[in-house]
């Protein structure tokens, strides 16, 4: 496979950022997208050039570390797939592929395709947890949870916190991420107790980080590699409204 790669380079000798074009002659359709970039980097290193910085960890589609926007789509052209699970067979010989970092005010570029997503960590730190020890994993059926509710909580828990929702949103809003975390915990008995306090704290932190407001476009849901539903956003809205209407401060 022959490819033309237009990659955003930033930091070091590339300063405030610009696109660099690379010719890739030895890619093949069995490579994953990240393996293709590995091969490119090996070539760049052998030519004594600076390799392209990009994030990756598990390469199994479950850690949420890989990012990048491929031809205008976070995680590339496939639905419900992370960048690491995209294979080169989904591209054609001779294609030009444009690779950019996730772009948002709250995700500053560290280098090339690597962005700082610690704003997500701070949203979690604000309330994305249960503050008492819940012990070991419960015996099945020890705490009865309705099947529908368990399924909804599980779907929300599938969020890997990669930030594709923010990258896809025209407003760079973090509502899909935050709502998935809030919904996941609020639906289950262990998390329900603190659900009001959690919704308020996580929304406040989300605002603090400079993410945009949700305009209900639905771009996040369409690009989410875990196909998290915007129904979670409705649930966060509900939780937040209830939290502010209720008299108790918790």
């Amino acid at each position: 496979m022959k490819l033309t790669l237009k990659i955003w380079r930033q930091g070091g000798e590339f300063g405030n950022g610009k696109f660099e074009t690379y010719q890739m002659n030895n890619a093949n359709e069995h490579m994953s997208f990240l393996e293709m970039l590995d091969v490119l980097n090996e070539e760049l290193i052998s030519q004594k050039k600076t390799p392209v910085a990009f994030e990756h960890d598990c390469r199994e589609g479950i850690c949420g570390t890989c990012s990048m926007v491929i031809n205008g789509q976070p995680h590339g052209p496939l639905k419900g797939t992370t960048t690491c699970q995209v294979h080169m067979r989904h591209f054609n010989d001779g294609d030009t592929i444009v690779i950019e970092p996730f772009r948002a005010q709250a995700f500053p570029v560290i280098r090339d395709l690597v962005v700082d997503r610690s704003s997500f960590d701070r949203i979690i730190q604000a309330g994305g947890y249960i503050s008492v020890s819940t012990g070991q994993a419960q015996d099945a059926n020890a705490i009865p949870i309705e099947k529908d509710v368990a399924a909804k909580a599980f779907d929300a828990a599938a969020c890997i916190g990669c930030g594709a929702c923010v990258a896809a949103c025209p407003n760079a809003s973090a509502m899909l991420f935050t709502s998935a975390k809030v919904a996941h915990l609020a639906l289950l008995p262990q998390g329900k107790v603190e659900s009001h306090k959690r919704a308020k704290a996580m929304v406040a932190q989300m605002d603090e980080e400079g993410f945009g407001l949700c305009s209900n476009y639905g771009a996040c849901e369409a690009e989410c590699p875990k196909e998290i539903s915007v129904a979670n956003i409705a649930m966060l809205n509900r939780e937040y409204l209830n939290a502010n209407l209720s008299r108790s401060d918790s």
Partner: protein
Amino acid sequence: MNKFSQFLHSSLGNKLLMSFTGLFLILFLVVHLIGNLQLLIDDQGVAFNAYSEIMEKNLLIKVIAYALYFAILLHTYKGIDITIRNRKARGAQRYAVKAKSDTTWSSRNMALLGSLLFVFIGIHMSDFWYKFKFGSHGDVDFYAMVDLSFSQLWIVIFYVASQLVLAFHLAHGFQSAFQTLGLRDGNYTTVIKNIGTGFAILLPLLFAIIPVLMYLDIHPMPDFRVFPGQ
């Protein structure tokens, strides 16, 4: 900052303000439409004039009218404020490639559509509301004023075009308001989307046919009065 102002300044508080004012304006549009449809009664404006007089003099209506002006201004101000905040959040560096979007055109252009509607409301109010309120004193023939306006083709075209803008604004706004209130879950989603789409087509369409029919001098609704000519 106390609890309430904290809530109002939060992103979700802002969205809820947009939602509440938007739904109030939607409700007003329904009432406004019912009033307007009386222009189509074949009675030389008797029913419409009687209705206009009630709207002029009733104290409760006056109070609601001020709430309405406030809602329009708040919805517009918050809309602009939110748009600026969102542009800032997106950052200065835009994507080089714009992929085909899964979002609707109206959802991406709410600020533009809203601005056009605000201009329309300004022109509409100076055209009718101002003349109704501060025009000639004494008995005013409201119907004759409307009839005169809608005998000019460019005014008719302007009103019809504005209703098209309203249709697109409602197409996203209606269902978005429910999503923001959190009243969207599972089976409701499709129902609310369908009602929203139906509403966004039907309401502006009914508003738009009034100037067209008046221009053509067609009054399809019969005169229901027991003693016509009174």
